[in-house]
């Protein structure tokens, strides 16, 4: 339990760091980006808007940094992330309407690729030295293909040329969001290709990592012992796989951030709604309040996922539960 609490403390600290960085960056960056932004916005948005932005980034308020900081934290604690410049509505509203798309697509993609990749890794590790080894170079290549490139190629081949899948978007534009079968079916249909591209591009990494772990684990005595006990091959493989998956789970926490970052781009390619798409647009439009809100949201989600992965590891490995070892 101590280890888990320790991890939790680290994540809390990280969350606080992120918030602080978020606070400091726009105030300390050379060239005063906020000042420049306000200059550009003059006349384009309402004076109230400009006032709101000034307030959020502490422009011309003559408050001490510390007062601003306390104010900022207080706002965050109340779920107030400021107002989006381009969308003219509270960032928290924008995010809460869009996050479900991202969670649905990337969450499902991550889970599916983890499971399939791990299962394949177990198999390829088990059959090490056989013809199946020929997949390794291919998997290595696939692992190195950028997410956005793979997505683009999939669109080109399967949507634009073969017309097997819809080109872009999250659902048929002629439908409006509602709880109906046609709508849900359309969402699923439109989700197929983006999901495939996420799964394909992260699959190989899990697979190769798991294969390595499986090979390493199979040279342990207890696996030979399982054979000596006359267990079936399936059972022996299971003994090895259960142990080999642990480092994969431990790695999960490290990899989630990378995975999420990569997947965010898939939304951009497929013009899929969601946080990734918002992020790219926010950067393009210099919509700093939205950008900051998204960054906090992504970071907090990743921290949460990290903690879940740690907890899972804790459940899976009895050695972590007694403090002596590990």
């Amino acid at each position, binding site marked *: 339990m101590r280890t888990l609490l320790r991890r939790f403390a*680290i*994540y809390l*600290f*990280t969350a606080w*760091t*992120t918030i602080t*960085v*978020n606070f400091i*960056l*726009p105030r300390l*960056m*050379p*060239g005063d*980006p906020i000042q420049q932004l306000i200059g550009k916005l003059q006349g384009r948005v309402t004076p109230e808007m400009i006032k709101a932005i000034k307030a959020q980034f502490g422009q011309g308020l003559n408050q001490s940094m510390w007062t601003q900081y306390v104010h900022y934290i207080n706002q965050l604690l109340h779920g107030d992330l400021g107002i989006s410049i381009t969308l003219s509505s509270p960032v928290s509203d924008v995010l809460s309407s869009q996050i479900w798309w991202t969670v649905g697509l990337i969450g499902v993609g991550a889970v599916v690729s983890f499971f399939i990749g791990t299962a394949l890794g177990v198999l390829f590790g088990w059959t*090490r*030295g056989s013809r199946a080894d020929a997949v*390794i*170079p291919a998997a*290595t*290549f696939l*692992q*190195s*293909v*950028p997410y*956005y*490139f*793979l997505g*683009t*190629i999939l669109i*080109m081949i399967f949507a*634009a*040329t073969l017309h097997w899948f819809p080109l872009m978007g999250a659902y048929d534009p002629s439908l409006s969001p509602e709880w109906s079968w046609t709508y849900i079916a359309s969402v699923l249909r439109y989700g197929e290709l983006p999901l495939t591209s996420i799964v394909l591009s992260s699959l190989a990494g899990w697979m190769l990592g798991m294969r*390595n772990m499986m*090979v*390493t684990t199979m*040279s342990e005595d207890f696996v*030979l012992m399982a*054979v*000596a006990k006359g267990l079936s091959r399936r059972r*022996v493989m299971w003994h090895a796989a259960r142990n080999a998956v642990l480092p994969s789970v431990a790695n999960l*926490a490290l990899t*989630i*951030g*990378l995975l999420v*970052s990569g997947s*965010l*781009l898939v939304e951009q*390619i497929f013009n899929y709604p969601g946080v990734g798409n918002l*992020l*790219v647009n926010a*950067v*393009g439009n*210099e919509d*700093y309040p939205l*950008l900051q809100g998204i*960054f906090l949201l*992504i*970071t907090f989600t*990743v*921290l949460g996922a990290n903690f879940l992965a740690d907890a899972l590891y804790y459940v899976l490995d009895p050695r972590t539960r007694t403090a002596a070892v590990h």
Partner: protein
Amino acid sequence: MKALRIPRSPKVIVGLVILSVFIVLTVIGPWIAPYDPNANTFIPNLTPSWEHWFGTTTLGQDVLSQLLVGCRVTMVVGFIAGLVATLISIAVGLAAGYIGGRTDEGLSLLANVFLAIPGLPLLIVINSYLPAGSQANPLVVGLVIALTGWAWGARVLRAQTMSLRDRDFVEASRIIGEKRWRIMWSEIGPNLLPIIAASLLFTILYAVGVYSTLAFLGLTNVSTWNWGTMMYWAQSNNAALANEWWWLAPPGVAIALVGTSLALINFGIDEFINPRLRAAGLTARQRRRVGLTRRPRLGFTPVLRQSPTDAKKVS
């Protein structure tokens, strides 16, 4: 002391060959490019031909020239970011692992924080606050990438340093009274070499990927050619919808090949660090030559009676 001798497997050799090709292109790419990558005087949308090996873009530019010119920036940023990140991780990892105590706790916390924060969004945020001039400067972007990419290596190096610290030979030099930094440099350092090499490969891989991603998103200067900006232009001109594969494929495949080569070399390092990963040794053909009918299986040691006189007697 272990010297870093990477097993010379076919994988490593292929990796080294691919990487060398790209390193050569990094140096000579801009000189051998057949045309000016910006010149938009060609017939648009040509498929690959003798004049334009990789065809032309919708804007009438030569794809091969863009690829060759873009190679340099991409690779240089990747290598600089990778090197800087690795230097940071060596400093942090060695200090944390060797000194221990408070120093270790502080540095480990720092590394954990950087590991937990998703790198790309952080990078996008930092990048978007950079003054326009710096955004366009590949060097600045490379340094920012290094800042987000050192933590993984530091963590691994710390663990390894800690386990080395307590080994006999280090203990011995401590007792003799060698200076701390000398022990770190001459006793621990060489033993960390394979891990440092692995982490260098990883961070270069990460940096090439992230830099291309930023460029693809149009967050670096879109008029400096690198592989990311090529994709940015392809994407914003809907190359996918128009099925212009010759425009899309070269930069993507180039990034993937650089990544593959680094990963292949890393296989060799992995096998060096963890000998259990070394290939079981026999290809199907070699197996047949030595007379094994199938791959040796766990718990089923093959019986290969060699000379006919050894052949099984009837009992």
